[in-house]
């Protein structure tokens, strides 16, 4: 599957493993709940492990583990759930997270610009045919009034 990462459309190999599914090989992401529960086992895995965070999760809960996590997925259950934007800001701005932050779930291509400004650097869109349009929205504005975080 293709995603946008660092302003490029690239092939991507990560997959999400649901809480009730078996872990598998390859680069996988798990829910925050599963991470907290199976952290020791997950850290021993040869796979790269990412953690998926929903709007109702607290970013603070994972702050201490961030150095061990190469990917944080911020998952939109609905595009209007703006908590994701603050989660991204906190990850980059407060906890100085250097890994990949990826938006997943139900968000609009037209939100990619704002999401990129709060520190999200990868976008897995619902429809891959929207990728070029979403990528071009990154150029919608050449000026802004607030500092962006990346």
């Amino acid at each position, binding site marked *: 599957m293709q995603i946008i990462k660092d302003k490029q459309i690239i092939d991507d190999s990560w997959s999400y493993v649901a809480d009730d599914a078996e872990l598998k090989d390859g680069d996988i992401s798990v829910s925050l709940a599963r991470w907290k529960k199976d952290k020791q086992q997950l850290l021993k895995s040869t796979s790269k492990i990412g953690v998926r965070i929903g709007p109702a999760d607290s970013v603070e809960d994972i702050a201490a583990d961030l150095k061990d996590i190469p990917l944080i997925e911020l998952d939109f259950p609905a595009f209007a759930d*703006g908590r994701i*934007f*603050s989660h991204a800001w906190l990850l980059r701005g407060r906890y100085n997270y250097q890994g990949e932050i990826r938006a997943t779930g139900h968000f609009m291509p*037209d*939100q990619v610009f704002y999401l990129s400004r709060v520190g999200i650097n990868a976008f897995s869109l619902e429809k891959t045919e929207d990728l070029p349009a979403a990528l071009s929205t990154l150029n*919608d*504005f050449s000026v802004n*009034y*607030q500092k*962006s975080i990346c």
Partner: protein
Amino acid sequence: MYQYNDTDQTLVDQRVAQFRRQTKSFLKGDISDDQFRALRLMNGVYIQTHAPMLRIAGPYGLLNARQLRKLAHIARTYDKNYCHFTTRQNVQFNWPQLEKIPDILEELASVQMHAIQTSGNCLRNTSSDHLAGVCIDEIEDPRPYCEIIRQWTTLHPEFAYLPRKFKIAVSGAKLDRAATQFHDIGLHLVNNDAGETGFRVLVGGGLGRTPVIGQVIKPYLEKKHLLSYLEAILRIYNLFGRRDNKYKARIKILVKESGLEKFSELVEKEWQLIRDNLELDSDYITTVKAQFAPPAYETDAAQGSRFTQHQLENQTFATWVKYNTADHKIPGYRAVFLSLKAPDSPPGDMTDTQLDAVADLADLYSFGEIRSTHRQNLVLADVKQADLFPLWQQLDTLKLATANIGTATDMICCPGLDFCSLANAGSIGIAKEINEALDDLDYIHDIGEIKINMSGCMNGCAHQSVGHIGILGVDKKGAEWYQLTLGGSSENEAAIGERLGPAVAKDQITQAITTILDVYIKQRLDDESFLNMVKRVGITPFKEQVYADN
């Protein structure tokens, strides 16, 4: 008045291009209704009963003559020759075509205007005192801070999808003319013990379904911390505000449910972590302040006797001066209210002809600037007293000189069932009926200061819950009924009106209002105002008469 720099202009131009693309995609079917709804609302576009409605930002109520002429042009070209001024100092067009809205936005951008964030669950247009910079009770001019907030809120990436809309108002005077206690955040410029000026910060006020008076969260905030403190409040609200029920999603509910103390703690903790990185640079404040420097007032404006003479010779003019002008900090100048409440026109509406004419009058008499007010009137803020007579004559011809500012016929009124898809009941028709019943200006003046606010549904766009008399349209089995409240106020001694009794039928509402006013005339003490009488006697004497007549 603030003039755009290259950054400001580029931003609004690029916003137009962005919305043009979004509208095109929607019309092609590439964006769903639900998704486009969020995008269009953040550009002020509603889908209404008859047509889309476009709400344009009047940044803290300030407009110049060129912008007014542009509004006239838009009214003529894209609408039905009129526009509507709102209680948050914005301007609405009721009849544009969706596919033309990008063109309208482009026209607006050419005169440094936009419709950004005039709707939707985001940071809205900042409102302020319509007498800012000229009033006699000012601590400090709030407009530079309004502009700083305007810039900070505009396209803020983190706070574009809040639980619900978010409104900020700033007042710099002793008398609160901006209803700051009924905003999500209210800011008051105040002096501290050391004589420095900063902000008293209120949070969690609001009108609508659940009217709440804002509470003080920070008695004194240094100016340099303005944006960091706003950001702290917004981040806490964005993370913890309720999203499960849109009627419980405003910050007032979060503050109420968590309690002010706990909410303050969260904000304080957040603020301590960000405050040092977000300090306002004093050069930036100075640069913005310079844009609001006073105009070139004449030093001899108070001299000459013509103004006094005209008042002695012309009673109608003298009455207009009394009701429709306000004291000015510069001797010989007055601030002039243009009443958008002429008896036969919908409250807050203006025609293209009036807009053009007022632009000319502003150029001629008031340094080319116009303000819109929280009560849906306009102000020419800097008029020499010697110019008042010719100005009045011209306003009279334009039907903008009804001497009713602050009186019973200066009603705040929403568009109601005639235009709005949310409304349960009509409001413009009722306003007209009340106007006809109160067609004697002497009687209106005898009643004196009274604020009647009327909304066509409980969303409360016309702030009925803080009207001295509030009228709220409700639907009862398909019929239009009206609930009355008495004793509300949005000024310093803020209060939410008390319900008078059961709703009144449409054909009884005007009678009910006139009965209330009669009770007041008969039972008031000396020069006691309506609001003070309600405070003294409560609602019972009014209730007895209103329901006795029914």
